[in-house]
């Protein structure tokens, strides 16, 4: 085991609870003081096949996985077959003795344990977890505590199964406890859900689609407590238009989807643009084009996020690189979208959405609330041409006032016009808002600097490549620059982050180097591009190798 580093892989068929098992491991490592990241790899099927989760704990924040595992938890033969080469020299395989043949390590007699406890097959994962806890030298009490929290149903039986396996296994190598505050571990989707709630969500609309369906599931489970409503309409078109209806009525809504659903939303995004309606969209990218690889990742929709919808209008696009950022920008997206009456897109991807991350509960951006406009409100003009471009928002019913929003070019009252002067004036009003929005963004740390800050070579990345880049940057002495906000592009913050840089290498999981092309608009010309487009994120080692090739 490396210092302050532990990696665990859990593998088994779909339906065997690999994701839950992974989450328990993640939670366990979290409780030991590690910062945790989990990557889940699964094909688009419900039962059978091969799923695996890689959980990495580290003293620093891990947001990418390593290739070498200290523990390989195998519920099926494939896990060993496919991942044996991932086992670290001093690593150990903990395996289901009934399923996995020809291997050495810690055998768990799952079949027998389940039979003795009269437990169903799906509890096999509790057995393997018990064995792992013992192998990793984790005390029973802590383990029990975590298992209780993670497994809501049939707790006693799961614990009994786990205990048998725990007792039967031997310790392999104790995972050292780190003396650091314990951070909670969340998936990006959960973190987004939390952020939306903090951003005063009232209604969440969604049509199921990987990798964002779990935002809906998470929020649906919180409806009572959070006093929100979650509704799944007939299509993404209905989803987004219901959200716009809510905005008109004055309550905050958000929606979540992936590329295919986003396509169907673009017409409404354009409507939000001209009608100046707040709209919050979580766009979780996956491998495209089209249905592509439904459960794998990509950063293929940057330009589409920036340009989806016809005509031109300001929008907020923020691409978080982990759950903490996802939460922070979910809140900010809600607030800014309302304050500036623009669509906001939280551009995540499968790794951020479905991956798990430790997060600092206190790391949250300063709220950007609506500032009540000083300008006169009566008679009410929905599209009053104010100095800021932001018109005061009011919602029906208002006695004596008529409140109109309009998809056509309109006058200050929202009535349709075809007048060229008004057409120009309304366009300029919208871009005025954008300049002010950009100003606020610049105050919100919209560009991260990571890696070796002093370097004059930049690894430039966005979204989920953040942490792999950070590690490659630290290792190779390169500065890492990650714009979190892509629109309006924080040119000043970016310039500051790029200060002194004479060589740029971009890192993206896409085919055409979208960020690399995009920053040319702002006068930055990357020298090299490291791309990956097979649906999988960069591992730490892989990116390190690619970066070394690039800088050599």
């Amino acid at each position, binding site marked *: 085991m490396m210092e302050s580093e532990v990696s665990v892989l859990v593998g088994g068929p779909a339906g065997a609870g690999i994701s839950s098992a992974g989450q328990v491991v993640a939670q366990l490592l979290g409780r030991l003081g590690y910062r945790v990241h989990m990557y889940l790899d699964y094909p688009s099927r419900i039962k059978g096949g091969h799923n695996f989760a890689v959980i990495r704990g580290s003293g620093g924040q891990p947001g990418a996985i390593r290739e070498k595992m200290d523990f390989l938890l195998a519920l099926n033969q494939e896990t060993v077959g496919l991942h044996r080469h991932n086992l670290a020299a001093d690593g150990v395989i903990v395996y289901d003795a009934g399923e996995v043949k020809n291997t050495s390590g810690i055998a768990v007699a799952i079949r027998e344990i389940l039979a003795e406890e009269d437990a169903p097959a799906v509890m096999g994962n509790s057995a393997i977890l018990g064995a792992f806890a013992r192998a990793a030298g984790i005390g029973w009490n802590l383990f029990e505590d975590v298992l209780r929290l993670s497994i809501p149903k049939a707790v006693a039986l799961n614990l009994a199964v786990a205990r048998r396996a725990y007792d039967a296994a031997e310790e392999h190598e104790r995972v050292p406890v780190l003396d650091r505050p314990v951070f909670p571990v969340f998936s990006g989707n959960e973190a987004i859900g939390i952020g939306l709630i903090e951003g005063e969500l009232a209604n969440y609309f969604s049509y199921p689609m990987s990798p964002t369906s779990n935002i809906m599931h998470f929020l649906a489970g919180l409806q009572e407590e959070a006093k929100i409503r979650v509704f799944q309409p007939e299509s993404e078109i209905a989803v987004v238009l*219901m959200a*716009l209806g809510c905005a008109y*009525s*004055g309550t905050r809504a958000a929606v979540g989807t992936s590329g295919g659903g986003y396509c169907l939303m673009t017409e409404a995004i354009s409507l939000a643009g001209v009608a100046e309606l707040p709209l919050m969209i979580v766009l979780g990218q996956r491998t495209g084009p089209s249905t592509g690889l439904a459960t794998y990742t990509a950063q293929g929709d940057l330009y589409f996020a920036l340009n989806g919808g016809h005509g031109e209008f300001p929008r907020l696009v923020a691409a978080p690189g982990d759950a903490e950022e996802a939460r922070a920008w979910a809140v900010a997206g809600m607030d800014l979208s309302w304050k500036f009456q623009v669509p906001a897109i939280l551009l995540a991807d499968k790794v951020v959405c479905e991956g798990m991350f430790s997060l600092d509960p206190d790391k949250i951006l300063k709220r950007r609330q609506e500032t009540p406009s000083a300008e006169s409100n009566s008679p009410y003009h929905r599209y009053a041409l104010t100095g800021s471009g932001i018109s005061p928002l009011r919602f029906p019913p208002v006695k004596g006032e008529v409140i*109109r929003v309009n998809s*056509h070019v309109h006058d200050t009252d929202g009535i349709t016009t075809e007048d060229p002067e008004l057409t120009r004036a309304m366009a300029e009003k919208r871009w005025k808002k954008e300049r002010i929005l950009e100003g606020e963004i610049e105050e919100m740390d919209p560009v991260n600097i990571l890696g070796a800050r002093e370097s004059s070579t930049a690894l430039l990345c966005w979204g989920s490549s953040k942490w792999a880049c950070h590690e490659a940057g630290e290792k190779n002495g390169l500065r890492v620059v990650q714009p979190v906000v892509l629109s309006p592009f924080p040119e000043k913050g970016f310039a500051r982050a790029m200060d002194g840089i004479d060589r740029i290498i971009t890192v993206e999981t896409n085919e055409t180097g979208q960020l690399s092309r995009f920053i040319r608009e702002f006068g930055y010309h990357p020298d090299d591009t490291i791309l990956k487009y097979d649906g999988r994120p960069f591992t730490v080692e892989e990116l390190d190798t690619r970066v070394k090739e690039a800088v050599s």
Partner: protein
Amino acid sequence: MKGEDLYSHAQVTWCPGCGNFGVRYALREALLELDRDGIPVENVVIVTGIGQHGKMFDFMNINGFYGLHGRTIPIAAGIHIANPDLRVICIAGDGDCYAEGLEHLVFGAKRNLDITVLVHDNRVYGLTTGQYTPTSPFRFRGRSTPDGSREHPFNPLELVLTSGATFIGRGYSRRQEQLKDLIREAVLHRGFSFIDILQICVTYNDMTEYYNSHIYDWDQDDLGDFEAACRKAREWDYDTEAPIGLGLMYRSGKETFEELCPVPEQLKPGERAALVRKIMDERR
């Protein structure tokens, strides 16, 4: 309030003789009556599609959302789900609501959303200069079908009845009194109210004579009888020669979507922070 107050100052750009004038008048009169009956006009919102019908947005002086072609219903749903005190009326077109956005009509009815849908069924795409729609008669000669369309129309009343609407009527732009009553009742009805309005398009599909010689008023005795409603709906299929019933066709009571999903009172900031803290603490 006077009728004139409900018209805006915007110049009306419908063709002279267009049936939309009649619909506008009926809507205005219905809103005046509703206002008198305790539904103040500021509580009413119209959601319009894109088409000649949609211009109602500009020509009326009431709250409005001028939306997208085909999408009045989900917008209206969002408005109403967020604030059930509002009375939301969709002003839709036949191209708009029966072609581009048909699915929303079926789902609005299925959910028994508590909104009103008025379809200005001129049986033609008016604003885009005269193409056939889902209710145009077979062999309709329009600009996309100079030799006549190859589709028989469907019957919107039958479709929404099947889909679960709880208030269904048919109006006619030249029967403004009846239409006014229908609209008023539709707004008052708790549940999905649907009115197909035979709206004259003088320019592209002037059916005035045909309608005038075929219409009659449905009797209103058996409004809750589903089978009777089926018969009424099927009498005329929008295609072949038959008497054309007008008025309310069906009305029934059923829990609305909004009743099933009541609006929770939002958390106060402190409560929200406490909830987030709790969620965080459960994960460490």
